[in-house]
């Protein structure tokens, strides 16, 4: 698999994640609901995945809609290993 990176937003609970998804659906942003990547946390939660080019927009949505998030991360996947960095 080739190297790639993307942003994820994690939530404090599944219900907040479901709410987050419905908010994002009404915004003009490309995103996916995915299982929280292992690099971010070992919990089995849901997360919102977005393109890093939309980072400002994603932050704006979270702020304006007062989404109860746990954190925003940059996930980097490489053949030699993957890792996550906290964005905010």
């Amino acid at each position, binding site marked *: *698999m080739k190297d790639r990176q993307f942003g994820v937003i994690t939530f404090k609970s*599944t219900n907040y994640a*479901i709410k987050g*998804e419905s908010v994002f659906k009404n915004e003009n942003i490309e995103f*996916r609901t*995915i*299982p929280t990547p292992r690099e971010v946390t070992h919990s089995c939660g*849901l997360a919102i995945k977005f393109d890093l080019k939309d980072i400002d927009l994603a932050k704006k949505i979270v702020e304006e809609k007062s989404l109860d998030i746990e954190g925003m991360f940059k996930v980097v996947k490489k053949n030699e290993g993957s890792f996550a960095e906290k964005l905010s």
Partner: protein
Amino acid sequence: MKIEVDARGQACPKPVIMTKKELDNLSEGVLTTIVDNEVAKDNVSKLANSLGYEYKVDKKSDKEYYIHITKGEATVDSNVCIPDTFKDMTIAFASDTMGSGSEELGKILIKSFVYTLTEATPFPSTLIFYNGGVHLTCEGSEVLEDLKKLEEEGVEIISCGTCLDFFEIKDKLQVGEISNMYTIYEKLKNPMNTVTIG
């Protein structure tokens, strides 16, 4: 004939795949796989074991394991009947949600599950969709993009024709092939692993 596979620095399951590939090419002789961690050493050893080949592990250091695998005449012919346990798997989708309890949650879980399939290699060999599961392969499904990606990677995608008919969505199919119960039965019965999601 001696062959060496240097799988140091390779993430799981790469060392196993690399070893398997070379073993398939090798008609007879010794193959040595070098890995840099214990988990990879165990996995490659398990592969040798499952194929019925003799192997010996030589630990040079904590970061250097040499696994010598002997493929000889005395062993069973690997071309006859050793399925690829790493790939030979069918996943059946019996519904367009995952589990019961909450439909809203079930729909999110199934999206999440199909996305995970695209992330974890090796991919399964076949995905089968029946009853409500056929909604996942048709127009309006939120997992189409992932299913198309899997199809491009060689995963066989089969939707139950009777089911598409029942829901009157045969013309809405967006990915994979339509098939019948005979094929579905074959695909469920033949692989090493069959998993049902629904």
